[in-house]
């Protein structure tokens, strides 16, 4: 190393450096940082190697990091031999092919094995230089000490893994909870064609508040419930469970749907969770050979739609007040209607009608149009699926609310024979 220029009078406490002195320092720094010295002692390692990895040149930084002796190393070792075995496979299967195909690789994370057997985490950039004939000639590699960064990255990787596991658990929990709020088996009523459909919102990681069920309340009478607890997540799911099981229990004791909903209202108020619920509860029983009587009450919920054999759509039931609101005295009314062969009844949650695209609502109009268009021969399953599909498609598959639909269909004269037992 050249000796430092004596700066004479310009000691630490001396007068400010004069212009000639500054020039001298500048040139001295330039001399000290000559290209050869910069190469050898750069704060990163440099390697040059043949396309097969044989190292032909290495700087002093590399040798000091790894402990290799230059004479025993240059021309004798290949780059991939300096790597830990796992990284060596990565080199052969990823690094070398990418370098050959793309002419360069960047920020490859590997570990160099030092002569003392220690592993040095590094980041590697390399370029492949080609000769005038286009053939690969030399690989220039620069290696950065990445101990700190890699330990930080290892923490990130571990954190990401934990996050992924946690998300998987949340998804599993949501699915389990959700399935506990829906009928375990496909609903069925002897002599009627009935189908339910449920579609969770978004990616299914969150439990929704929609529910439905079909159950036998007494001999020859079936209860059909469909409802929506506001909100999503565990708290909504807990309320949904209360609503669903209260309807189930009350439906077995009381014949009047309005009385059943009143019981649900009181049960929800006792929860004191400040969450409300809308629901339709309907009982059906056969009134004559081919006709059925449906008695229903609605609580803050859109009234069900009835489509007759001619495709005429009307609403059945009467509006009632929402369930579970402290300020609201619940009141709903039973209404009975006759269902004739070929009639279909559709119960649905607002996940259908409130589906949005560019601010526009799917709305009741589209639903009624859809039902009027579905062929009279469509069975309950087809009708329920058509509704869910239309609502999901309207939102380009990105549902923001969950959707529940129940469809009842009274077999027409020609279908009576095929509507199952009963």
């Amino acid at each position, binding site marked *: 190393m050249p000796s430092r220029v004596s700066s004479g009078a310009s000691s630490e406490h001396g007068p400010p450096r004069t212009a000639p002195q500054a020039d001298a320092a500048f040139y001295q720094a330039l001399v000290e940082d000559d290209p050869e010295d910069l190469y050898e002692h750069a704060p990163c390692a440099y390697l040059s190697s043949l*396309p*097969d*990895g044989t190292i032909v040149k290495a700087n002093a930084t590399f040798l000091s990091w790894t402990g290799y002796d230059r004479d025993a190393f240059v021309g004798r070792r*290949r780059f*991939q*031999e300096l790597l*830990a*075995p*796992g*990284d*060596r*496979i*990565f080199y*052969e*299967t*990823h690094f*070398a*092919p*990418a370098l*050959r*195909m*793309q002419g360069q690789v960047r*920020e*490859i*994370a*590997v570990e160099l094995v030092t002569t003392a057997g220690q592993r040095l985490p590094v980041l590697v950039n390399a370029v492949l230089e080609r000769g005038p004939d286009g053939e690969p000639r030399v690989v220039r590699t620069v290696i950065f000490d990445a101990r700190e960064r*890699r330990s930080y*990255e290892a923490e*990130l*990787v571990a954190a990401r893994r934990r996050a992924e596991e946690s998300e998987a658990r949340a998804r599993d929990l949501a699915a389990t909870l959700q399935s506990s709020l829906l009928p375990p088996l496909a609903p069925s009523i002897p002599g009627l064609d009935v189908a339910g459909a449920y579609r969770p919102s978004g990616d299914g990681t969150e439990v929704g508040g929609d529910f439905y069920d079909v159950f036998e309340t007494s001999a020859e009478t079936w209860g059909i419930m469909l409802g929506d607890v506001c909100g999503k997540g565990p708290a909504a799911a807990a309320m949904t469970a209360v609503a669903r099981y209260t309807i189930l229990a009350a439906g077995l004791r009381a014949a009047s749907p309005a009385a059943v909903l009143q019981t649900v209202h009181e049960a929800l108020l006792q929860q004191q969770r400040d969450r409300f619920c809308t629901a339709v509860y309907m009982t059906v029983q056969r009134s004559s050979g081919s006709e059925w009587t449906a008695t229903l009450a609605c609580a803050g919920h859109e009234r069900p739609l009835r489509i007759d054999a001619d495709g005429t759509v009307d609403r059945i039931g009467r509006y009632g007040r929402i369930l579970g609101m402290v300020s609201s005295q619940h009141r709903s009314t039973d209404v009975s209607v006759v269902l004739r062969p070929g009639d279909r009844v559709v119960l649905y949650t607002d996940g259908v009608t409130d589906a949005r695209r560019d601010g526009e609502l799917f709305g009741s109009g589209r639903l009624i149009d859809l039902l009027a268009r579905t062929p009279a021969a469509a069975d309950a399953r087809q009708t329920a699926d058509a509704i869910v599909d239309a609502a999901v498609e309207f939102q380009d598959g990105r549902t923001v609310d969950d959707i529940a639909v129940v469809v009842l269909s009274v077999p027409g004269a020609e279908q009576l024979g095929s509507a199952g037992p009963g």
Partner: protein
Amino acid sequence: MTGVPDGRPMVFAHGFGCDQHMWRFVAPAFEGAYRVVLFDYVGVGGSDLAAYDVDRYSSLDGYASDVVEVCEALELTDAVFIGHSVSSMIGVLAARRAPERIGALVMVGPSPRYIDDDGYVGGFEPDDIDGLLASLENNYLGWSSQMAPVIMGNPDRPELGAELTESFCRTDPKIQARFARATFLSDNRDDLVEVTVPTLVLQCSDDVIAPEAVGRFVHRQIPQSTFVQLRATGHCPNLSAPQETIDAIEGFLGSL
């Protein structure tokens, strides 16, 4: 698919790590006389990611099913199957399942088992495979699942060619890790003796993934096999020494 439509089919299969681009310097040499078929395994390269099935691709059998399905879809018979690296063993499994489809095997850098076993030297310890999985994980920090739709499944959109080249060797890290496990934890030594079709074993020099002793083992186990030692070093002679690779394959095909 390129080459002569009614020529003998040649099916080129890539190994672990990359995709069919691995054959870009080799496959064109056969287009004059053969029907050349290139494909990507499901989950890799330009394949349809939606077709990826975790269970199916947790063992080499799933990849062999891909080969059989490609052969069936194209109605290939008596094809020459050229498998790089792990695809050599995938070819063995596929040929056993669809003997009428595959009439010859070319193995480029084959290894029936990568991990050392009692009296058998594969070249690696179980810890090394964990090291590879860590290496894969370390090198996919920047991977974003948002990239997947761009990289995957756009074979019909040539304007994405630039990105495809840029993304060469990049695929979903979970799929890579599963392929790595299926590859490096496999043991196909007992399957070799069942190979009945003419087979070429191409052995590189200084190949750390498939050392010469392993290539010779493969050659010994397969009765009807030819062993050719390449001067090419490393594990990818299809990239580093395409002409030598082509010459060896042509010599083998000429001898059939």
